[in-house]
């Protein structure tokens, strides 16, 4: 609780961090209250006519309609749910695996430790998006497979970061002293290492969330989004594949794109500011 308090105090003083926090809270509110905010039910079937396909914004449809005659604003509001959900769940798993591997590599040390980091390096080299594409294409497009793909292969940078941090900590005075008076390794991990690594993980987590959201939207754009859910990436996939550009239907393209930028920017700003607080640069 005390750390959270200090955290809030330092965050409050930086306009960038505050902006990120406000943007994020607005997005979370929109996702939570989607059924009350959205003017139409995005899942309800619509009888599309020539007049209702890609209809420009009007009083009836504030952001116009899409290729199926559905209200863009309602889909935009519901789309926040998928992005935030994927971001939270995928990053939680990622940070858990990455943190565990990083700490374990140090904890067991020796052969096993270096073997763990070697494996991390192997996965680190493989470019993310092609791997996600292959996994989701083979397993089938569902939101859980998207999360699985991101979590299964996204933990490497966290593991590296945590490992480097732990390595630099273990030579510090207070850890050496704790060892000198006979503290066991699990005790040192619990009482000295984890509290100091946690803030770094927090900053990394914000970065991982923004990357996960970007990855989900990219997969959905490539046609690998969950077909049963409305996400911003899927909206862009339909708009791109079904002629929104040639019709000039900017209202079907801009809102979902701006939605992704909004949420990702919120996490990027937060991550940047947390990093500055945790790891202040003298320059």
């Amino acid at each position, binding site marked *: 609780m005390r750390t959270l308090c200090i955290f809030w105090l330092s965050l409050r003083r930086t306009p960038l961090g505050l902006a990120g926090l406000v943007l994020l809270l607005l997005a979370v509110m929109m996702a939570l209250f989607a059924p009350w905010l959205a003017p139409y039910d995005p899942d309800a079937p619509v009888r599309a006519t020539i007049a209702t396909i890609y209809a420009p914004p009007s009083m009836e449809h504030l952001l116009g309609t899409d290729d199926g005659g559905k209200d863009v604003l309602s889909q935009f509001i519901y789309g926040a749910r998928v992005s935030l959900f994927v971001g939270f769940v995928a990053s939680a798993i990622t940070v858990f695996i990455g943190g565990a591997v990083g700490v374990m590599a140090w904890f067991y040390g020796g052969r096993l430790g270096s073997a763990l980091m070697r494996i991390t390096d*192997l996965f680190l*080299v*493989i*470019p*993310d*998006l*092609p*791997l996600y*594409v*292959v*996994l989701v*294409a*083979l*397993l*089938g497009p569902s939101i859980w497979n998207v999360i699985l793909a991101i979590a299964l292969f996204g933990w490497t940078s966290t593991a590296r970061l945590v490992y480097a941090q732990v390595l630099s900590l273990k030579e510090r005075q207070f850890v050496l002293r704790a060892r000198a008076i006979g503290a066991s390794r699990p005790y040192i991990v619990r009482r000295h290492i984890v509290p100091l690594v946690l803030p770094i993980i927090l900053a990394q987590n914000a970065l991982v969330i*923004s990357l996960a959201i*970007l990855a989900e*939207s*990219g997969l959905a*754009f*490539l*046609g*690998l989004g969950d077909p049963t859910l409305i996400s911003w*990436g899927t909206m*862009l996939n339909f708009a*791109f594949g079904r002629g929104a*550009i040639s019709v000039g239907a*900017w209202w079907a*393209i*801009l809102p*979902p*794109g701006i939605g*992704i*930028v909004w949420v*990702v*920017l919120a996490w*990027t*700003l937060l991550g*940047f500011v947390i990093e500055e607080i945790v790891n202040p*640069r*003298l*320059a």
Partner: protein
Amino acid sequence: MLRRMLWAVVTVVFVVVLNFFLFRVLPGDPAKAGIRDPRLTREAQQAILERFGLDKPLFLNFSGNPFDSQFFRYIGNLLRGDLGISYNFNRPVFDLLGERLWNTILLVFVGELLAITFGILLGVLAAWQRGTSLDLGTLLFGLFTWSLPTFFLAMVLLILGSTYFGLPVGGMQTPGLSRADSWTQLGDLARHMVLPTLTFTIILLGEFMLIMRSSLLDVLGEDYVLTARAKGLSESQVLRWHAMPNAMLPMITLIALTLGFTVSGSILIESVFSWPGLGSAVFEAISRRDYPMLQGAFLLFTVAVVLANLCADLLYSALDPRVRQV
């Protein structure tokens, strides 16, 4: 040096094995799914199994020749440059990817070059004018472009460029120009390249800029810069001869690190602009369930990134003697 190369070989082997198991163990390949069709006779099923070599054991053959298995056939075919036949084009994947490889390299090369050039320039400017509104502007620009989904930026640029500047909406060449003289063709190619390259540059620019800025700021705090200033060198001399050469080192690692980013960028950008490269091959392979093509493109992408990482490693140790000694 030797250890690094050995490590790259290990990584490539890992990627090759992963590529095999991903596509063999996971469900989804139509060649395997098709066999379960109950309308097929037992003989037809057997024929399909034999045609794709699926009647062989997965990894090691315990009855007879141990290497007569799916895995070792795959390795053997790979060594002969055989990546299978594309379901969609009914032609060897190797040839198809070979045709597209150079288009991607052209796009990535020009995009990276522009991003590095402008990234260094703006980063140096920001570090030089530290604390001013210009510095804050570059920071915000960097964070903003980092948050932009590549394909969304591509779509927006596509709409703006084609509506207001009359630039082509996709592809590499205007149809019917194949018999025009080479200057007209080159100009046509350049016009087609403007929008995809611009997207690439903007996506990569922010990160290069921010790293260059912080790297230069680190160097400017070093003792040897202070010494250079104390000798009475002008600010631009200090920057050019003492600060810049050292600040450039992290950029080399960064170029290697952003290669994964470049690969995903090329998939998304080429898909939007129908640029006939490896990235759009992935896009088409997904929508047409063309698994051999997807497998080949994945292998090529990963091997390219591994090799590029190795090059960056070697270059880095050649440029920075401190790394070599360790």
